[in-house]
């Protein structure tokens, strides 16, 4: 399937993994591609784990659920433990190395990249933007959509009340991309 990408984004409930999944989905639509986005929540608001699957394709999309994804963004240790074994050989794994020991990365089979997302976000003034750092890294690594389109889509997923946060988030996306750029 040409131009096909799928990714599981996973982490704690409060880490904003759903937000970056949605961001990617919007960007894909803006980019003229087909897309499905499917979240899986834990039962509680916080403290549980959460993950979502985004499928982006230039062709029609069948199942929105992917058992064996082409890529993974793991924001915490349980997410890596759970999903890394399922990533297809040669797939891309972005790991939040602020919370996950990089020794756990399966470098033999996969292209794994550690990003200290919490620290980077913290250094930009808000730990909560770790998710943006991670998506920046992922987009940079896979080119699923142009980085500019991701940034432009921020205003689709961040409510107008928080519009003033957009520049900071753009910075975080950039920082993530920079962190993995060669």
């Amino acid at each position, binding site marked *: 399937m040409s131009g096909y990408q799928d990714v599981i984004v996973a982490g*704690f409930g*409060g*880490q904003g993994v759903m937000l970056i999944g949605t961001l990617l989905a919007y960007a894909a639509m803006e980019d003229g591609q087909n897309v499905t986005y499917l979240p899986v929540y834990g039962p509680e608001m916080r403290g549980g784990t959460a993950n979502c699957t985004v499928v982006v394709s230039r062709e029609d999309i069948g199942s929105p659920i992917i058992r064996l994804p082409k890529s993974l963004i793991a924001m*915490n*240790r349980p997410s890596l433990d759970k999903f890394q074994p399922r990533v297809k050989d040669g797939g891309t794994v972005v790991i939040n190395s*602020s*919370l996950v020991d990089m020794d756990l990365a399966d470098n033999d089979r996969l292209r794994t990249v550690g990003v200290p997302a*919490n620290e980077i976000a913290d250094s930009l003034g808000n*730990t909560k933007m770790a998710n943006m750092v991670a998506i920046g890294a992922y987009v940079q690594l896979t080119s699923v959509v142009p980085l500019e389109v991701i940034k432009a889509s921020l205003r689709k997923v961040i409510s107008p009340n928080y519009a003033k946060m957009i520049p900071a988030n753009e910075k975080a996306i950039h920082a993530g991309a920079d962190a993995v750029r060669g």
Partner: protein
Amino acid sequence: MERPIAFREDRCKGCALCMTVCPKEIITMSSRFNTSGYKVVEVRDEVMETCTSCAACALICPDYAISVWRKPARDKKGEVADVHYG
């Protein structure tokens, strides 16, 4: 050094409630994250001595992250709150 108070860092969620009740105002936010990704609080060594073992922090903590031990000296003076306040 005497350490009348200790934080179980893996339990702390950085809510800062303990900071608001400490009569000595010695609890502060650290710059450390625990494995769950929460910033944790601390009582810096410099001010540890000030702790009265009043246990107010432990009483308000929603996550049972704080252990407090009585200071024997103070115990005698009876200044320590009986946390079984039953």
